[in-house]
């Protein structure tokens, strides 16, 4: 009996990492889904604030970033649904400051996503052989990278972003954010420009 218990414990120990790995991607997807929900709400609030302060182009960029997050939310939710996991649909109340501070917060947010959070999710999803999750996390890394670049440009010359002369395009297929003029097709997923949504 003692031997049987030991064997079962050993099997259990072997199974733990496998189960942990399985739950890891689902957990990461839930976390990413929640982070995107929060980010979407945050960028929408930032856009409203930028509009109030007269930074029209910055407002357009925040709206584009919110749209990009919205696409992530849908993608993560679709994989979670396939895994039989229910995703929460409530965003945290955003903390809104001045547009300059909001841009800094967005940069911090995107940097953390791109450099730490999402690469970790990718690794876990690769280990779990969750191809769709890998693709969506990588898509988010690409979109966040370009978004980060644009936020840094905005922060560097915020006064120049007062005029509403800038246009941003979001690929509704993969969520990639681009400043106009954009290429005829999405550089990430190759979707044609009819799939772009414009923000200005």
């Amino acid at each position, binding site marked *: 009996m003692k031997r049987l218990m030991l064997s079962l414990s050993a099997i259990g120990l072997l199974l733990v990492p496998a189960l942990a790995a399985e739950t890891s991607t689902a957990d990461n997807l839930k976390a990413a889904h929640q982070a995107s929900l929060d980010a979407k709400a945050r960028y929408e609030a930032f856009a409203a604030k930028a509009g109030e302060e007269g930074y029209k182009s910055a407002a357009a960029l925040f709206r584009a970033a919110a749209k990009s997050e919205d696409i992530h939310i849908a993608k993560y939710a679709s994989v979670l649904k396939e895994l039989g996991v229910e995703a929460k649909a409530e965003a945290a109340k955003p903390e809104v400051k001045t547009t300059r501070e909001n841009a800094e917060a967005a940069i911090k947010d995107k940097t953390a996503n791109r450099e730490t959070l999402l690469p970790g999710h990718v690794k876990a999803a690769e280990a779990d052989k969750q191809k769709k999750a*890998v693709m969506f996390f990588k898509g988010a*890394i690409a979109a966040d990278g370009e978004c980060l670049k644009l936020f840094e440009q905005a922060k560097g010359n915020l006064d120049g972003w007062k005029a509403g002369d800038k246009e941003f395009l979001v690929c509704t297929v993969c969520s990639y954010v681009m400043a106009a003029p954009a290429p005829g*097709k999405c550089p990430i997923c190759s979707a044609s420009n*009819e799939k772009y949504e414009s923000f200005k």
Partner: protein
Amino acid sequence: MFVPLYAMRLLWLGVLASQLAAVVGFWAWNHVHHPLGNQLTGDSTAQFLAWGRLAGLLAAFGCLLQIVLVGRTRWVERAFGLDRLSRLHHVVGFGLVLAIVAHPVLVTAGHALQEENSFGGQFAAFLKNWEDVAGATVAVGIMLAALVFSVLVLRRKMRYEWWHATHLTFYIAIALAFGHQLAVGWDFDTNLPPDPDRGFDAHRWFRYYWLGLYVFVFANLLWYRVARPLAGYWRHRFRVARLVPEAGAVTSVHIEGRRMERFLARGGQFVIVRFLARGFRWEAHPFSLSAPPDGRRLRLTIKALGDYTRKIPELAPGTGVIIDGPHGIFTAGRCKGAKALLVAGGIGITPIRSMAEDLARRGTDLVLLYANRDRKSIVFETELAELAAATGRLKVIHVLSADPDWAGERGQIDRERLARLVPDVREREVFLCGPPPMMKAVRAALRNLGVPRGRIYYERFAL
């Protein structure tokens, strides 16, 4: 510098294989390091797009290969001979259909899946929104039409001249497809965001490589097909000196020019000529040199077999001639032994005649079996007898298939006749030129008599 044929072939095949590997390698690298993850192991959308792009790259690569094969590129031609390259061109052409059709089908299917569209709707969206897709669609149409016309001309249901004119539109198709590749080819897209994980910007390097490939192929084409023949004409000012009627419907065209001693050719080679006269100037045709160049003139011997060759006797002396060549590896230079057997059928005597002189003067022990229908069809009968008498190294045996008055050999050149007339055939290298059915039969008979495949050299007439 003498480079053995096998070394030239290996070198050429090595170059081809390395270029193919580079194209597939760039494609694989791009798709493994795709911003959305490894597309080669991705979902069905990723697979459709990845393999569709590879089909497109291979189709374009195949088109460039086709140009090299028929571009009379000297460094390729010397390794294989234009007749073999021409046959390879036919085979690659039909293989290209697969890649040309697979590319739009797979890419459209991939995008239709990704963008939740119907196949037709997706293709319409491409035509409307993607740069150069309409041009590429025209290119695919031209390429497929060119292939259909090639089948028709092979089956003799279309005139060669019409086929040739339509085949030239292939260059328009290549230009249209090239624009499409650079405008929308994902593998050449330099708009991708920089990614330190990718190591190096493969898209940019692939674009440079691709441009280099096109420049290289078209530079070769322009040099070998246009500039070189024109430069030769400028240097030698080739002119028709005289026309000499030979037996049957055969005419020898003697060509003279300046500095002819610098026009170097071997017995057995051929040239592609364009006579600068009304009714001739728009066509260039290959003809064998029927005598080794003597430093003063060239001789082409042409049988009236079609519309073009029937007009040859109408050429006026003094007509200018653009000569592309010499071409061909079916030359006396390939004979390494002391004995050779030459086998000619009909007008296939032309390269054999010049080769016989070349070899006989080198002291090679020669037997020539020359097959014709009847005695009046024998071209160079007197000339060959004189050459045999002058050199003492050539034995000419005429074999006539349908001449009841002929006291010599009557029938076909078959195994029995070869064994009887050339008992030491296994010791000889064999050079063979004639109608395809005859060449096939003689090759089989020679193999049956124990002549190794590597000692039988032959060249087909048609390119």
